[in-house]
């Protein structure tokens, strides 16, 4: 490295940035294409092919997609569903992660082993017994059922992340608090939880992304109540009903993608820090 002339080094750096930008453009191309196509006229869509730039901008595609497919209702449902999932996941996994990282109790190791094993088992088909269980609990066709089943799917990963994170926090803090007379609950809610901001963001973001994108679970548990459908399910109805309105399909894709991408872009700096915290220990 040090033997290279400054100019050669600069050239190499230029090439690196060129490659990163070029790769990034290819990486984002499907999104740029969907965005461009969502603004095309129907004719423009068929003649445009892979060219994402519309010859004229048809903003009305958005209002049409929005009203035709009842997107406002799907949007509210998706927000409620994702928010509920994030809250349930964060509460359950942070509490579990804390006690698994910091307390010792009979059965802990058996539980950890069981949790590890469930990671490797195929889950896809278990939808039938889950459906049965939800039906017996009289939760079928409610947003609650979707929130609960979706949250349950994120338990293992979230708990492991919180466990890793809490192990890195200095034990002295808890000991000091205990000496000052803090109870078990105070230590968790007043000290440990406020300290775990990056991990709350990481696990919350994970839960939010998977809930927002979830297709199968909201579909199956709201089958007979179309007014409870979420965006990704709603978009599929939309394709069925308007199989030729491809520009509207593209507009629908953008409406579905944009909010979650924005949330990610805003929160993403926590993401790596959170994961790094879990990896360290």
């Amino acid at each position, binding site marked *: 490295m040090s033997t290279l002339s400054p100019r050669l080094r600069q050239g190499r750096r230029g090439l690196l940035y060129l490659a990163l930008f070029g790769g990034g453009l290819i990486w984002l191309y499907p999104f740029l294409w969907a965005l461009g196509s969502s603004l095309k006229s129907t004719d423009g*869509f068929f003649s445009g092919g892979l060219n994402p730039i519309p010859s004229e901008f048809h903003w009305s595609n958005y209002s049409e997609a929005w009203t035709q497919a009842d997107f406002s209702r799907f949007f509210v449902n998706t927000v409620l569903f994702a928010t509920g999932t994030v809250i349930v996941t964060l509460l359950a996994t942070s509490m579990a992660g804390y006690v698994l990282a910091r307390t010792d109790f009979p059965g802990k190791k058996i539980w950890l082993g069981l949790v590890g094993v469930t990671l490797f088992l195929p889950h896809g088909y278990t939808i039938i017994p889950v459906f049965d269980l939800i039906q017996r609990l009289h939760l079928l066709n409610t947003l609650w059922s979707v929130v609960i089943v979706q949250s349950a799917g994120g338990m293992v990963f979230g708990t492991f992340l919180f466990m890793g994170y809490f192990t890195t926090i200095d034990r002295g803090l808890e000991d000091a608090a205990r000496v000052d007379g803090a109870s078990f609950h105070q230590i968790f809610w007043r000290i440990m939880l406020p300290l775990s901001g990056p991990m709350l963001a990481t696990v919350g973001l994970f839960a939010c992304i998977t809930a927002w994108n979830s297709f199968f679970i909201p579909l199956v548990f709201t089958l007979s109540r179309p007014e409870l459908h979420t965006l990704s399910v709603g978009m599929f109805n939309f394709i069925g009903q308007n199989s030729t309105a491809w520009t509207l399909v593209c507009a629908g894709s953008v409406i579905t993608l944009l909010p979650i991408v924005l949330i990610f872009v805003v929160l993403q700096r926590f993401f790596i820090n959170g994961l790094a915290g879990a990896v360290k220990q």
Partner: protein
Amino acid sequence: MSLLATRQRPPRTAPTVAPRPGLWRRIRAAKWSYAYLAPMAVLLLAFVVYPIFASFGYTFYRWNGIGEPGDYVGLANFQQILHDRIFWGAVGHTFVYAFVLVPVQLVLALALALVLNNPKLKFALFFRTVYFIPVVTSAAVVGVVIQLMLANFGDSAGSLLAKTGVTDGQIDWLGDPHTALAVIILIGIWHTLGYNLVYFLAGLQTIPAELYEAAKLDGCGPVQSFFRITIPMLRQVGVVIVVLAFIGSFQVFDLVQVLTGGGPYFATEVVNTYIYHLAFGGSPGSAAQPDVGLASAASFLYGLLLIVFSALQVLALRGIGRRRAA
């Protein structure tokens, strides 16, 4: 990560430290631990663990999923699955998917992580976001958009390749049994690379910078410090990344379902779409009538296969780790 720590030590019930208070007393002393664990435990047991066992019960019945299972058939479902060429084809496709996707993706992700981890790199955050964005997007939307892009409208990818003479004639990428699986693997690499990029970045950040400085003082070049410092220091995180990548690939479902539904002629049928088609119908030629019993038997057999494979994988990776350490 803690996942590995758990798997390395088999669960033991006997306390390792000598005299301890009685079991009952220890359980009572830990009552708040159990209370805090309870929400997670209940959700996991009810919606993940119980259904696995409940499905095992279904494997002995011929059942369309409606009402109570009635028609007891013993082990016939297992027999039928073991003799089904489509099942073994699906297992093969899933393994091809995993064994092509995981190595390619991990090499790409590690290379990208090394570049993006350079503190002197400008716009690192921007690039990190760009390469992660496909992860954030749903397979359903990705499937629709990619299908539209690959369709032969106007100047599509197919006609461009045909014009430049790379291929003769238009290729129906997802409709041709020879190309469909390859296209799905490519899209799979694109769609989930971001996860491994972030894991590797997290791993790289745990390596103290002083190690590299010391190596540089000793006259180590970048290639040498990559093999002497980066790789050994990433070993532990790397094992977790490899295991997670394989688990994810073996469970592939959404992408295949929205892109091809397992077709054409079962050329992209993976185990999870096969199970789905058995349980809910919907694939021409597979099961005309949904059969939850058959589907459960298939997923039970696949589960066994995965457990054996995972155990081998962990053993192999630990073996490598030990040899390196010695």
